[in-house]
């Protein structure tokens, strides 16, 4: 039985073109980029080219790209690095704005900052799982240092208004903020500038990631969501953004990320960005069609099914998330797995604990409905036949578990 993989927001397979690009850097061009002889120069040249490709992809300068081990590291670096840099300059523990639906790689460092005395606001979302602009506006304080919101949510595919946030913050930064009784805004301009960060890990394949479109100061990229290997990512950080390193041990990546560069993976990440940009329109169009057909077929064939997250243009092309009241999500996932189809409950990172998805509950979905949800995320390799097969088996599986449940439950 050929297996069907529909959990591409958890991770994607490596594109053969990406794999081909990275392979020479394991055993042939294996030098350390910091070495001055030819082996090192060859590796350094590969990194330079990768940096240029990604800078081109984002529309920024190559010195603004920092390679990391992935989105988790990048997000940690952004939150801790920017907030701590502010503290070093001002002696004040500033304010961070983020949202309730972020990935744990944002929420957990934010909680640590909170424990250390920084102010943190976790913005709510509406029923579609989208942060509303007036909530962002309301949350901004005189001591706000950083606004960090994901570009698209990994569970619901809900696209967040990052470009609007970028515009709004730029206006506030230009006008300056009104002086509060403690006189925080009387600090020289630039000290209390607000910086905007977005975790674009899930968005890169599908959405416009040009920096001048988004108006962000920092952006997170991850390799393994765009057909590059796990364990590589990048940070875009605008020149002049005060940020300090959170790990020490070398001057790599402009002193912001110590450690010998992962040359083959960096090459892979750049190649993956290049491929994503090239096929973005085509892949998006194909997946929007598949997505909307899948949504309407599920709604037709499975009674009491409820789509979680927005419809249409505010949803990632590859994401479908449904609740099936009276059947439990993990059982459906296991049932589909035994039928050769891989999907997930919520996000893979939260399936270690048993609490219902924090994203769905933030949207006002009751725990018992959140427990009945599954996420289907397609890739550029997903075919019409894959979706047909899913639509064929899913209704029977949901029906089976509904029948198994106590009636009054």
């Amino acid at each position, binding site marked *: 039985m050929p297996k069907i993989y529909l959990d591409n927001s958890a991770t994607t397979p490596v594109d053969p073109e990406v794999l081909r690009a990275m392979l020479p850097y394991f055993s042939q061009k294996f030098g350390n980029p910091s070495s001055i002889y030819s082996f090192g120069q060859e590796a350094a040249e590969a990194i330079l080219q990768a940096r240029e490709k990604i800078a081109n992809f984002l529309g920024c300068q190559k010195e603004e790209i920092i390679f990391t081990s992935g989105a988790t590291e990048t997000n940690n670096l952004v939150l801790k690095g920017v907030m701590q840099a502010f503290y070093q300059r001002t002696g004040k523990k500033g304010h961070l704005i983020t949202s309730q639906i972020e990935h744990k790689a944002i929420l957990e460092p934010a909680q640590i900052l909170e424990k250390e005395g920084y102010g943190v606001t976790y913005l709510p979302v509406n029923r579609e799982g989208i942060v509303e602009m007036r909530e962002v506006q309301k949350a901004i304080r005189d001591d706000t240092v950083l606004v960090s919101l994901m570009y698209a949510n990994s569970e619901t595919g809900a696209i967040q208004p990052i470009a609007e946030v970028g515009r709004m913050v730029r206006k506030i930064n230009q006008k300056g903020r009104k002086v509060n009784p403690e006189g925080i805004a009387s600090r020289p301009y630039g000290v209390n500038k607000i910086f905007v960060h977005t975790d674009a890990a899930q968005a890169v394949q599908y959405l416009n990631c040009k920096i001048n479109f988004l108006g962000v100061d920092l952006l997170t990229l991850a390799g393994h969501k765009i057909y590059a290997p796990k364990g590589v990512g990048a940070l875009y950080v605008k020149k002049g953004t005060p940020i300090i390193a959170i790990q020490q041990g070398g001057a790599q990546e402009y002193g912001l990320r110590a450690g010998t560069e992962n040359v083959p993976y960096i090459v892979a990440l750049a190649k993956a960005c290049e491929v994503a940009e090239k096929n973005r329109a085509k892949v998006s169009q194909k997946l929007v069609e598949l997505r909307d057909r899948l949504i309407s077929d599920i709604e037709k064939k499975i009674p009491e099914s409820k789509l979680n997250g927005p419809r249409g243009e505010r949803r990632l092309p590859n994401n479908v998330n449904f609740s099936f009241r*009276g*059947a*439990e*999500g*993990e*059982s459906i996932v*296991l049932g589909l797995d*035994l039928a050769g189809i891989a999907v997930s409950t919520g996000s893979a990172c939260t399936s*270690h*604990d*048993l*609490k*219902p998805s924090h994203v769905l509950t933030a949207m006002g979905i009751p*725990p*018992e409905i959140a*427990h*009945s949800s599954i996420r289907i995320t397609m890739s550029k390799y997903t075919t019409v036949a894959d979706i047909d097969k899913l639509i064929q088996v899913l209704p029977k599986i949901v029906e089976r*578990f509904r029948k*198994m*449940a*106590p*009636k009054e*439950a």
Partner: protein
Amino acid sequence: MYSKKVLEHFQSPRNQGRIENPDGVGQVGNPVCGDIMKVYIKVKNNKISDIKFETLGCGAAIATSSMITELAKGKTLEEAIKISRQDIADELGGLPSNKMHCSNLAADALKKAIEDYLTKGKDKKYERN
């Protein structure tokens, strides 16, 4: 993550369904984990002569429900009430640690069903008096 035995019970649960006019019923649920289990028993000569379950829950919840029906069937009430969460997990070749508490409620459901039977029995005695 799950043992072969868990997946096998998940795929082909034993004694799944309900008993009409049961001698005892026990339901337990955990809203945090989202699992609800209901166990029905028939008792004859102080032994569990028939047992069935209905479960809303994850793979572990279904497999542990299925397993307890196998373990309890034919046992005396005294033996059946002693079946522990650990016994069920052991019989299933182990459970992931995060599932041991939330989704391993079958023993509790059976205990409740037996208690229900015993209380009902007392009521009947009162009725006779």
